[in-house]
């Protein structure tokens, strides 16, 4: 019972962390940050891998395969576009 509650606590605390971490973000970073957080939920790939690893029937394997495929797309695509955007941010003093 207590174990289930620990997860609920994690959920609550992580929720506050997300809110605080980007609380004072300047407007200029809204798009890259949205893209960056989009990359972070690409961790769904890990979950999809575990599910595919346990799949037995053809149907389960097929859906699991799609899951891993989509998860990998989320993670890699999210990283590439975020990195491309952030690479361009330079200060005039840095020149």
């Amino acid at each position, binding site marked *: 019972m207590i174990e289930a509650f620990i997860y609920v606590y994690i959920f609550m605390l992580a929720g506050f962390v997300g809110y605080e971490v*980007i609380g004072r973000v300047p407007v200029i970073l809204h798009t890259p940050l949205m893209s960056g957080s989009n*990359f972070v939920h690409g*961790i769904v790939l890990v979950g999809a891998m575990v599910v595919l690893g346990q799949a037995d029937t053809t149907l389960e394997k097929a859906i699991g395969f799609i899951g891993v495929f989509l998860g990998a797309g989320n993670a890699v695509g999210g*990283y590439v576009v975020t990195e491309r955007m952030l690479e361009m941010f330079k200060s005039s003093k840095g020149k």
Partner: protein
Amino acid sequence: MEVMSLIIQISYFVTAVLFIMGLKRMSHPTTARSGIVWAGWGMVLATVVTFLHPEIAGNYLLMIIAIVAGGAIAWWTGKRVAMTDMPQMIAIYNGMGGGAAGAIAAVELVKGGDHHTFIVFLAVLGALIGTVSFSGSCVAWAKLQGVMKKVIRFPGQQKVNLIVFGLMVLLGLIITFYPHLGAFWILLFFLLALAFGYMMAVPIGGADMPVIISLFNAFTGLAVAFEGFVLNNPALIIAGTVVGSAGTLLTQLMARAMNRPISNVLFSSFGEGGGPAMEVTGTMKGMEPMDAAVQMCYASRVVIVPGYGLAVAQAQHKVWELAELLEERGVEVKFAIHPVAGRMPGHMNVLLAEAGVPYDKIFDLEEINNEFGSTDVSLVIGANDVVNPVAKTDPNSPIYGMPILNVDESRNVLVIKRGQGAGFSGIENALFFLDNTHMVYGDAQKVTAALIQHVKTL
């Protein structure tokens, strides 16, 4: 096996720390670049150790093929997409994440197993949110990419949406309490969720799309967190929840910048309601690039206001060249960016950064708005609604109340515009008819090139 589990759990912990610190670094311009790299290493670590996960019994080859295929396609598309098309790429990658969360739930539900009812409930909830995010994001992509042009609306649309939503929830609850009903009902549930995501996004116009993309981003985060509960995976729970709440906050910030409550974005179309718009009087006065160049050269302060039209014309490099030339002559040049310039908040900053404009020359609405009174020339390039003073004066205007850049307060206004038509939202712009406003007609890139030539010869 015990040791293996420990290594995996420690790795997931490190990944969670890297993600959170990465996001923190990404929210400041000087550290942003390193932030994504930190988060990237977290992802690599988590993915690699998962191959050693004791619960994985096989299918390694399938797994590797799926990762390589999905990763390669995303890598290839992500590398070659133009900066102007970035919003729709974010939408589609986000949709993929939602779809992956839905797939996890689908396998778990098809398998059945002896999960606690509460866990099945979370799986269903995650499936619902993830699948809605998947189809909704696909629609957002199609609209911004121009594949789907029409805003589809019909009478009673919200009732139909409500019925689909109700059926989807009902079916979700049935599956939760009777998990062994069979694949047919699960399939029906997913089809309803796909339909609902489609119907949620399809009535939304292009201007509101960024808010919806951001909302779907938060959705996917939550879906990933719920599937994390199902799989007992803290990395998914933490990363998903952090994105869920950060995404919700970002959505609110964007909606606030556009002065559009999220409920308005979702349930009413842009420009609906209100009485007849105020008559705009006066005439538009044209000006040759030569005269415009003279005006800017002898100004002491010039503020450049770029809009999406600049990005479409690919004029950002030329504009920065012009700004540098003016600075060489001792003119103070600043860039003023409206929060919703471009197709997404911050999108215009990315486009200017691509052209090499340093971010400390770029100013937010709040930072620069009271400086327009002491500005000699405001150069508006491809921006329209965000500089329209009717937002302050005409309560009947659909954009009334939206914060705008007070360009009309500056001594002279130069507007580079293709023709005399109204803007993206179809609203007449009172700024263009002011006495101190002059229009320089033409393609943004060509006009800017002409301005550069004239400035050089002066």
